[in-house]
């Protein structure tokens, strides 16, 4: 098995030397038209924790992860990542948060190595220092033998492996994985489990949205369950639910709440 190096963003100290939570949301809500994908979610996650984010389809898992990644803005509520106001200063947060989405976000006419070298540049690696990082990442996800082939020729599982390799060339403090096991075979799933373990050991906060409840729960310190856009259950170490949000008390108008 190849050596895998995990790169991590430097830790930030909070006020008076305290460690700020990795994630702190207050009343986080997101409306799409008149329906709420997320309704008044208040949640705190300690740094370095691995959290399983569970719930049925349409529960709001992906919406929550996309808000945390700063891909979309909440309709209401506030959000801080590592103590940084993520809505006020999203650019600073983007250097610390890495999001693995459903879409693998590759360029089909580029080879796997070219895709990864591009990602390495975007994550701040120089041309020379980035090359070994890219090669190591390709070897870790077992794509080093086909790294010179265009991504257009890749299967769904190979594309997912390449997306994982992109996460390996990043330097996250908070890692958001949306269905990381999807499209992968048994070996691929085992690889994801191993990488999550490595990120956890390196002190990265990991949030995993998944329908494979048993699998991700065994990897996680805590479980957060969403249902209909609401925070349904929080259990385990290092995670706390905030007070019931005003928007929940008002019963924010919402398709999600009708379920």
């Amino acid at each position, binding site marked *: 098995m190849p050596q895998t190096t995990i790169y991590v963003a430097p830790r930030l100290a909070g006020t008076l030397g305290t460690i700020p939570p990795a994630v702190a949301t207050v009343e986080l809500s997101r409306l799409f038209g008149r329906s709420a994908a997320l309704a008044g979610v208040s949640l705190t996650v300690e740094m370095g924790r691995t959290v399983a984010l569970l719930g049925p389809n349409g529960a709001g898992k992906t919406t929550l992860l996309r808000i945390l990644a700063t891909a979309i803005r909440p309709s209401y509520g506030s959000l801080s990542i590592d103590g940084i106001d993520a809505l006020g200063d999203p650019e600073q947060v983007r250097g610390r*948060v890495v999001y693995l989405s459903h*879409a693998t976000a590759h360029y*089909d*006419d580029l080879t796997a190595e070219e895709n990864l070298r591009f990602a390495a540049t975007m994550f701040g690696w*120089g041309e020379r220092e980035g090359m070994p990082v890219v090669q190591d990442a390709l070897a870790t996800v077992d794509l080093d033998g086909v790294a010179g082939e265009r991504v257009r020729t890749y299967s769904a599982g190979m594309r997912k492996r390449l997306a994982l390799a992109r996460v390996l060339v990043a330097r996250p403090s908070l890692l958001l994985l949306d269905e990381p096991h999807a499209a992968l075979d048994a070996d691929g799933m085992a690889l994801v489990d191993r990488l999550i373990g490595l990120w956890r050991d390196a002190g990265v906060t990991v949030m995993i949205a998944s329908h494979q409840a048993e699998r991700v729960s065994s990897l996680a310190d805590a479980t957060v369950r969403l249902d209909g856009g609401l925070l349904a259950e929080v259990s385990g170490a290092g995670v706390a639910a905030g007070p019931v949000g005003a928007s929940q008390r008002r019963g924010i108008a919402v398709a999600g709440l009708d379920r």
Partner: protein
Amino acid sequence: MTDLRRGLAVAVAIARKDAISELRGRQAAGSTLFFAAIVLLLFGFALGPDSQRLGEAAPGLLWLAIAFGGLLTMARLHQLEADDGAFEQLALYPVDRRAIYAGKALAGAAAMLVLGGLLLPVVAILYGIPIGAAWLTLLAVVVLGAIGFAAIGTAYAGLTVRMRAREVMLPLLMLPIVAPLLLAAVKATVAALGGDPLGELGSWLQLLVAFDVIMLVVGAGTYGFLLED
């Protein structure tokens, strides 16, 4: 790495990535060139064999073909990002938005320059225009036109890439804004081909430079907002 060097590295990486995708997806780039050449050919037939008439119409038709081909090019360079969620990933990288804009605009300008450079001899052959003495001036006009078109096109393609009817919306939104650039480019081309008897070439070139600078500044300043939700 300083902010400027980092921004430059990001812009070059984006432009290189787009250029590789364009070159490997040859059928798309080839069809754009073919489409622009067909526009020139059809207008040539419509105008008839009168060489004076063809010569008078040539500068306008050249820029019409460049504009049509440029619209397709701009849309395609952003379509690369729309496929497979790459645009969202691009927005999430921890890089200066202006560097992303610079990279996309650089790729667009290079593609436009190639398009203009290839269409110039096509116009010369089809419409019987001697461009020998004016080639350097014409090249300068094409370079300035390509930069301005790409500066606007990149911003508008970023605006429309998430729209469902982006193929319709891009020309609809962009053509009114790009009209002054096309006017200046046509006038500069006329002056360059005609030997500039009225000494107006310099003014049109200055207008093109001013237009390019303004559009690059506006584009770089607004592109970041287009990447946000």
